[in-house]
């Protein structure tokens, strides 16, 4: 008999309880910790990206005594120009009436004359007139002119209230209309560019507006009364009203970011048409930053699509074969082996793909393309031959091993295609398939292209798709398949009519998980492509994905800067996408499990 009241036993009972509570506490802490960590990553990304979309703050404050104008509003004219202007009687021109300050830009001087701009070259002894170009409608007059930092854009305001940005070129046509901020509105009397930034202020009778060269108007408010003096060293606008100096503090660190500049083609300087571009400039550079996310999103989806194009048929085919055709003993060996493929690090796959596979495919391009067409045909042919074989031969190979019959055929054709590749290329494409593709189909060829990424990343996602799809198929209650076969269904009919409809959602979720992995995969895309932010469908051209872009640029972005925040915003998009895909896949799998339970219970 156990004496439950003895101190030793009571102590043990107490210890048991304490241990149980401790374990419960620890395990729930771990669980909650994981959830909190995932949420914290999301919250961190949101917090880091949020300032991008907050509107600029412009506020008037008393200026610190003794503050000086570091950047005057009107830059002095180049020496000698005044004399030249007198000699040329330019004073008589409407330029004098327009009050628009001449602007020096790109070694040239731009004068406003009525509705036209005159370009003077300043390289010779005396200024030389290069051209006179209309920039607003003939009945309008230019009221203000400003050159943006970086020296490639001119902003022109007219007396109907129009405001336009023109990009400047070194040769005719000299000017190209980039942005029309507005056609009509309050007449702008003065334009002031902020020092070392691509922002400018426009003053009209009603108030003051803050514009960014690409994003357009970012703020509008009342202009302080009195007279503007200039910008101080921190970029605040100093203003004198009735003898008191005020400072207009302008806080717009991420003014160039808006939904439009992130996702739509933008009229960048130096390009004829609006473009989708991702080209971050180094920190502290006055060049236009080009933060178009569309090419990156495109590259991410393109890489994933080509990977799935290869992986889905192969992985699902393997899963069907393994679940329905393979003898159990063989399946138990093959499944773990395939899943071992998943343990291969992405860096290794990427390295092999970029430095070994890419040059190899390029050398055997004709053979490789021929294989893509021929391989399925060869498989069909081999299958057809199998049914024509004498029955005695066929009996030597049990059905589960029938795949072996295919192997020599595949090996033979791959060897044949690679061997014949140079000959094919010489016979059909004058020995230069790449040149032929470029000339006749207009397809560029990058050595590290979507095809290579598709092969490498497809290889990497096959194991996860295979494992999940196989689980879903072999998890179908055996009674279903057996019942179908007992009623005389063939294996194919059992698979297609019974197993697949039952396991369909599980197979779908397997593909979704594969897609999630392909979208988030970093190292393979980074190493197997040239990371070119192109938007093309062609399998022979490269791409740049969100994840690879983060790996390349995030270590070097200045924390808190626009570039850094845009990168974290793209990370947030990636996070949300994979989160959504994985959650959807998980929900589908849950429903499937419930269905299996019901099916099994109905037995």
């Amino acid at each position, binding site marked *: 008999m156990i004496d439950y009241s003895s101190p030793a036993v009571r102590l043990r009972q107490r210890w048991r309880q304490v241990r149980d509570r401790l374990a419960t506490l620890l395990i729930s802490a771990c669980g909650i910790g994981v959830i909190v960590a995932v949420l914290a990553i999301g919250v961190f990304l949101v917090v880091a990206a949020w300032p991008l979309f907050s509107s600029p703050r412009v506020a008037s404050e008393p200026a610190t005594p003794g503050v000086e104008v570091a950047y005057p509003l009107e830059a002095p004219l180049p020496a000698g120009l005044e004399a030249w202007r007198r000699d040329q009687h330019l004073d008589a021109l409407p330029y004098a009436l327009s009050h628009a300050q001449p602007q020096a830009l790109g070694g040239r001087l731009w004068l406003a004359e009525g509705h036209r701009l005159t370009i003077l070259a300043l390289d010779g002894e005396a200024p030389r007139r290069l051209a006179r170009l209309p920039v607003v409608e003939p009945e309008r007059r230019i009221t203000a002119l400003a050159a943006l930092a970086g020296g490639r854009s001119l902003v022109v305001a007219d007396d109907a209230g129009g405001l336009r940005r023109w990009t400047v070129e070194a040769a005719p046509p000299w000017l190209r209309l980039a942005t029309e901020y507005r056609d009509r509105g309050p007449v702008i009397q003065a334009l002031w560019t902020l020092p070392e930034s691509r922002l400018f202020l426009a003053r009209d009778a009603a108030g003051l507006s803050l514009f960014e060269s690409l994003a357009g108007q970012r703020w509008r408010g009342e202009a302080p009364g009195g007279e503007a003096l200039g910008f101080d060293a921190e970029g605040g606008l100093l203003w004198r009203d009735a003898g008191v100096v005020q400072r207009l503090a302008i806080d717009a660190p991420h003014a160039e970011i808006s939904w439009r500049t992130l996702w739509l083609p933008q009229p960048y300087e130096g*390009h004829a048409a609006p473009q989708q*571009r991702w080209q971050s400039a180094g*920190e502290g550079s006055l060049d236009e930053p080009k933060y178009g996310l569309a090419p990156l999103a495109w590259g991410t989806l393109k890489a994933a699509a080509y990977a799935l194009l290869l992986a889905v048929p192969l992985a699902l085919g393997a899963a069907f074969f393994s679940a329905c055709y393979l003898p159990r003993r063989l399946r138990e060996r093959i499944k773990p082996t395939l899943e071992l493929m998943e343990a291969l690090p992405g860096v290794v796959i990427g390295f092999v793909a970029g430095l070994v596979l890419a040059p190899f495919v390029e050398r055997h391009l004709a053979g490789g393309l021929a294989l893509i067409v021929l391989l399925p045909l060869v498989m069909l042919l081999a299958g057809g031959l199998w049914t024509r074989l004498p029955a005695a031969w066929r009996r030597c190979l049990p059905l589960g091993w029938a795949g072996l019959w295919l192997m020599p055929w595949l090996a033979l054709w791959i060897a044949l295609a690679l061997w014949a590749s140079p000959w094919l290329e010489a016979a059909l494409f004058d020995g230069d398939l790449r040149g032929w593709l*470029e000339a006749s189909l207009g397809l560029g060829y*990058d050595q590290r292209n979507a095809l290579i990424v598709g092969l490498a990343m497809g290889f990497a996602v096959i194991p996860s798709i295979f494992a999940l799809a196989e689980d879903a198929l072999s998890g179908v209650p055996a009674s279903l398949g057996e019942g179908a076969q007992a009623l005389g269904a063939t294996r194919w009919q059992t698979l297609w009519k019974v197993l697949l409809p039952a396991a369909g959602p599980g197979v779908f979720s397997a593909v979704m998980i594969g897609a999630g992995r392909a979208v988030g995969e970093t190292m393979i895309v980074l190493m197997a492509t040239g*990371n070119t932010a192109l938007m093309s469908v062609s399998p022979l051209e490269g791409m740049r994905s969100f994840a690879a872009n983060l790996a390349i*640029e995030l*270590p070097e972005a200045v924390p808190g800067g626009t570039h850094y925040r845009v990168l974290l915003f793209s990370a947030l998009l990636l996070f949300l996408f994979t989160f959504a895909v994985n959650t959807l896949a998980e929900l589908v799998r849950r429903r499937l499990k419930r269905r299996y339970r019901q099916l099994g219970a109905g037995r």
Partner: protein
Amino acid sequence: MLLAWLVAAPLQASSPIAGPLHSIGSETLASLMLRWGETLEARHPGVRLQLQASGSSTAPPALVAGTSRLGPMSRPMSESERAAFIAAHGYPPLAVPVAMDALAFFVHRDNPVEALSLAQLDAIFSDTRRCGGAAPLERWDELRPTLSGGISRYGRNSASGSHGVVRRLALCGGDFRLDVGELMGSAAVVAAVANDPRGIGYAGLGYLTPGVRALGLVGDDGGAVRPTAEAALAGDYPLSRPLYLYLNLAPGEPWPPLERAFVELVLSAEGQAIVEELGFVALPPGRLTEIRRRLGLEPGH
């Protein structure tokens, strides 16, 4: 004499050359920093150089935040980077030129093109063509009729010093084409060009391998300059740049022994031998003496 030695010995021991030395900055300088660090560690066993090399743009923020004491950079600091440093510390950073780097454009070893002009390189790599090229160069046969095929372009990622130098010097500040591959590391660029008979890419001259050839540059007078150490030092080869080591040292402050030992090693004959060994261009002895004098490292100063 003996007394002096007895007094001096404990003094020396009180400020030993030991401890961790953090360096954050240029990827181009990584191999140099590593070798200099190893040499210093061999000489003073207590020293540990901790090196993080992901691009010149990472050096100034690390110096400002105080997370590193050495900031190797493959370009001079920009005005805004200097301003941020001065705002944080109250004095400008100390720049020490440590070597020269010549950037070269590489082609596959079987490519017969010997030299290109900067305008041609701009027409190959840029789609703004600010250097004045009328049309983009898309195919090798536009350069040499005997060649064929489209040009494949390789380059570095946008935060690297090489990217900035090529952009400034060869593209006149214009934009790279979108199909210029952005690879991680100069060695990756050279490896990609070595594997691609139609490839052209830029990297430091020190990364020259047997699989690639470095192109000469055709000047305005029509003569070609080979990318060599002599040409870079003489200023004849335009695609060269000085490499800097930035330090956080207040004016008038005595050198901390560890930094002093490191910079002395870098500017010594032994340190410059490492520079040459790794394919960079060593500074001439006269220049080194001048730098040492300016830094107050010259004996007897």
